[in-house]
């Protein structure tokens, strides 16, 4: 990372911490803001948050690695999460999974070379009456068919 990028990120994190307050109970909202903007929480960002909250960096790392939505490495701009839990499974998630894998030419857990898509499974996301369901970043898509799922991916710019 360039020194200038580092100081820009530091300034940004200082701004966020100022807004929420530098107490431990604000750790998750602070991390979520960084995650939303950058798509991941880098080691450097974790250290800066720790410094500003006056806790050990390992405390921040422990939290970041606990929560399924948080990530420490840069991945795709679109995180595609297909529900694999029972109701979506009954509704035919397997066919959707295979269609997406073929279309993006990656397996679950992988990111496309152009860093556009990361493909993951997610557990039940509360759309079980409308499965198969998937989440792309914050947006929910339901009643998927293989064709519909591919259309949705094509519309991601």
């Amino acid at each position, binding site marked *: 990372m360039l020194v200038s990028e580092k100081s820009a990120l530091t300034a940004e994190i200082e701004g966020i911490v100022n807004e929420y307050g530098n*107490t*431990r*109970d*604000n*750790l*998750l*909202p602070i*991390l*979520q803001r960084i995650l939303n903007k950058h798509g991941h929480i880098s080691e450097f960002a974790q250290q800066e948050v720790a410094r500003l909250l006056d806790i050990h960096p390992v405390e921040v790392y*422990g*939290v970041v690695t*606990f*929560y*399924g*939505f*948080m990530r420490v490495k840069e991945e795709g701009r679109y995180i595609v999460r297909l529900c*694999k*839990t*029972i*109701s979506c*499974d*009954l509704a035919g998630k397997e066919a959707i999974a295979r269609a997406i894998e073929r279309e993006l030419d990656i397996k679950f857990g992988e990111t496309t070379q152009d860093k556009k898509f990361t493909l993951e499974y*997610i*557990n*039940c*996301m*509360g*759309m*079980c*009456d*409308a*499965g198969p369901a998937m*989440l792309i970043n*914050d*947006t*929910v898509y339901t009643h998927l068919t293989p064709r519909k799922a591919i259309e949705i991916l094509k519309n991601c710019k």
Partner: protein
Amino acid sequence: MPIINGTVLFNKENHGDGLKKALELKPQEIIMEIRESGLKGRGGAGFPTGTKWMLAAAAISEKKFVICNADEGEPGTFKDRVLLDEYTRLVFEGMIIAGYAIGASKGYVYLRGEYRYLLNKLKSEIDKMYSENQLGNNILGSNFHFDIEIRLGSGAYVCGEESALIESLEGHRGEPRNRPPYPVNTGFMGYPTIVNNVETFAAVPVIIFKGAEWFEKIGTDRSKGTKLISVSGDCEKPGVYEVPFGTTINEMLEMVAAKDTKAVQIGGASGICVPKSEFGRNISFEDVSTGGSIIIFNKDRDMLQVLKNFMEFFVEESCGQCTPCRIGNIKLLEGVQMIERGECSMSYLKELIELGKTMQIASKCGLGQSSPNPFIAIMTHFENEIFTQW
């Protein structure tokens, strides 16, 4: 006792000015009313709400907190999503009334990250309530102050467990605590805290508006009121249904147009699997208790695959803090895979069931205590089906 039908939540005529009425009562009077209504927690455990509030009200502390558990992560459950989306006010009003009753001035909604798309809607409803003087200082002319803040989860099922939820709110890993102490004594930041489910809060303004006596007539002897049930799986009309407690599984199946049903899973992955021979049983705290979900399996479904899906869920969602759950779920999943390959002897299966029973006793929180439920139930009810496949 006959079941009296009625809708509590899904009937706007019942949504009156419960909040206004509550603020005209004394806090103790509200708690009495909730106790008399017989309202029990809708999040799964069914603890009497009035008792929980009474304990928190009795605690002496400069600060107290109200937390709305909107982490809804139990597979097959989506009724809180519908309440938050379509009956937002009712939930917030319930939280305000709870705050007034126990003497808290701050409430948190812990919304699962997967429901982030609801955030703007919830926030704008909160803004509206501030501008209408239903939140903030001197609510509706009383001398009661209350604020609500929404916090997001980040993709961890275990954070729905109330002490893990509090850990998460405090900025830690969502690992459940030992209980006791309970949140009503030592909750958020060490202060007395009540944690209730979205549906529990939603029922509160209705009870205050319509009266405990009205509410108490709906349902069964020991389960008062109605339950929202999220229905998914093999049926023609999946969705959220409000039914009085005491409704039988057969009645539910008819309502949702399910055909050739072989079994239903009630209460999500950690609930119980009920085979066809027991469809006469009813939904209530005294019979088949549920946080609010029914997943339907028709005659063509392979119950071993269903079980495998559940066990994969628990292996992934165990927080890993205690050994029975961390290792036990993996062993049960491996057992399912062995059965799949035709490598599991009957005596090893018996050992696995014993392991499940140990997990039910020895695990630290409800996740590990209930994760063996589907294993034991499916292996018991469908032993023949599963072992004649080889």
